[in-house]
């Protein structure tokens, strides 16, 4: 009885340390990607830079799940990546840090339905891709108060009058924008799924799901 207890404790410890080790290594990769690729895209003023980064992050989390599938690993990885982002030089990093954490939370919640399945990966990527738009709006509301939404709507109405664009056309444009972000995100999720599987199949499967014998 005591041996069984000891073995299960050891196993638990190993799994816990693997959990945090995966969060640390993939968090480091995501954080460094945010710093390097993020700086590059923002410096060049590439459109959809935030969406591209979110999609890459979601892809990374999806790929991580192919190696190590535990509930909560995506969120933990996101928090570690956000902490790595703190070494980013200059600028206000609080917003991007919160953004990374929220993206990780979204992916975590969606991967509950199928941690290693392709549809869940694509859906997670899609939602994470749309998130930067929502985050931008949320950030504006926090900064300027909820009145900023009334202001934007009023300005859009005025712009629509000047340009002769109807409200339904305006909504269509907005939906197209959201769909574009979703597609970019979905591609990220899909790529992450494919790369994760390829990494396992072509490399050596370091994260064997079978239980290791306890020594």
């Amino acid at each position, binding site marked *: 009885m005591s041996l069984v207890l000891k073995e299960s404790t050891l196993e638990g410890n190993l799994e816990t340390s693997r959990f945090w080790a995966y*969060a640390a290594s993939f968090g480091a990769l995501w954080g460094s990607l945010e710093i390097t690729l993020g700086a590059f895209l923002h410096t060049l003023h590439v459109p959809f830079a935030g969406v591209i980064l979110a999609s890459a992050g979601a892809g990374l989390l999806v790929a991580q799940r192919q190696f190590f599938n535990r509930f909560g690993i995506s969120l933990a990885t996101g928090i570690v990546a956000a*902490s790595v982002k703190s070494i980013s030089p*200059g600028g206000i990093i609080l917003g991007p840090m919160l953004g990374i954490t929220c993206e990780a939370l979204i992916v975590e919640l969606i991967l509950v339905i199928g941690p290693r399945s392709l549809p869940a990966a694509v859906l997670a990527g899609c939602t994470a891709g749309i998130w930067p738009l929502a985050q931008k709006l949320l950030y504006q509301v926090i*900064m300027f108060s909820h009145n900023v939404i009334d202001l934007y709507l009023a300005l859009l109405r005025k712009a629509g009058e000047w340009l002769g664009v109807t409200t339904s056309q305006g909504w269509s444009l907005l939906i197209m924008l959201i769909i574009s972000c979703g597609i970019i995100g979905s591609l990220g999720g899909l790529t992450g799924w494919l790369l994760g599987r390829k990494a396992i199949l072509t490399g050596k499967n370091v994260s064997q799901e079978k239980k290791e014998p306890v020594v």
Partner: protein
Amino acid sequence: MNTVRTIVLAAAAGTCVIFQVLSMPLLSIISIMAWLLLLIRLDPRTAGRMGTVKFWIISTLVALASGLAFGKPDYLFLGINISRTGIEAGLLMSARAIFIFSLFSFLSIRIGLDNFRKAAAYAGLEQLGTAAAAAFSILPFLKQSIEAHHGSRKKVKGKVKKKKRYQLGLIVEEMAGLLFDTASLAEALAGKHDVKPKIIALVADPGEGKTTILEQVAADLKIHGLSIGGIVQPRIESTGPAAQGYLVKDVSNDETCELAKSKPSPGILELGFDFSEHAWSWARKKIENARLFCDILVIDELGLLEAQGGGHMPALTVKLPLDRARIWIAAVRSDCKKEIEKQIGPFNMELPIPPKNGSIDFLDMIRRTIERDPLE
């Protein structure tokens, strides 16, 4: 920051909040300006981070646009009819944004690893703080991994120059490799792969052909699809019987660096060569990279220097987060064997130098050893 400064800044921040809550635009703007001046004077680092042009443009536009969008136009500004109440609302919104932006800026400076760990510990998540610290410590290894994969891609690129359609395939390989390395790092961090590598040693006296055989072995194993890294030390030939010097050569890509030049008149107690510090550190990096990212490490000429803990020995004994190279093939001078074993561990297999026509059998022996003890 001392207590007085903190109290002054907190009082100024509190004043800003009060005027914001009471919706008093003029006093809000005055208090925000006072707050900014205090920030520049007392906390220049925070003020420095607020120099984001985009934010200031958006804030100004919000203030002006509110005059257009809200209320009835009752004021002419630059030939445009705008509303006073709208402008006031806009100014209030911008003042609020500037204040929150400065708070974000204040926090952005103070979020560092130490504070993150403290916050995690405070929330009862010590392991999260430890994971963040581990993430910081493995950043250099991730950089090495990216460089190693990119290096291999450049090399392969040269071979398939005419077939550009394979370019995407190479990028995919590179990214999959990076993901695999990241997972391997995680396993190493978790202590799962803390297994000593198997050492196959070629023990012989100087001049018996260890380097030539190691080069043959590396080339042969590469053909069989194993990733080989590490170094060999071929002689720089001279007209006389003694070597003019030694090169150090990366077996993965045949890059070379001059390691030693013979001294014109060596003393009794010194070695007969001048060694290049740059070449030692170059070789060290190559050996460490091979340990991290290759299946097999090839290491040549473990001799007098290594027996004393110098030469290539530090690269072999340094603790790395991951030792993926599970087989080390080392050329060892026979008179230094015991000392070398003390430092890197006992040899799992010791092979003599084969007779001149027996090199193929010898390669087969190594191959069989590796097949018997697969790299998984």
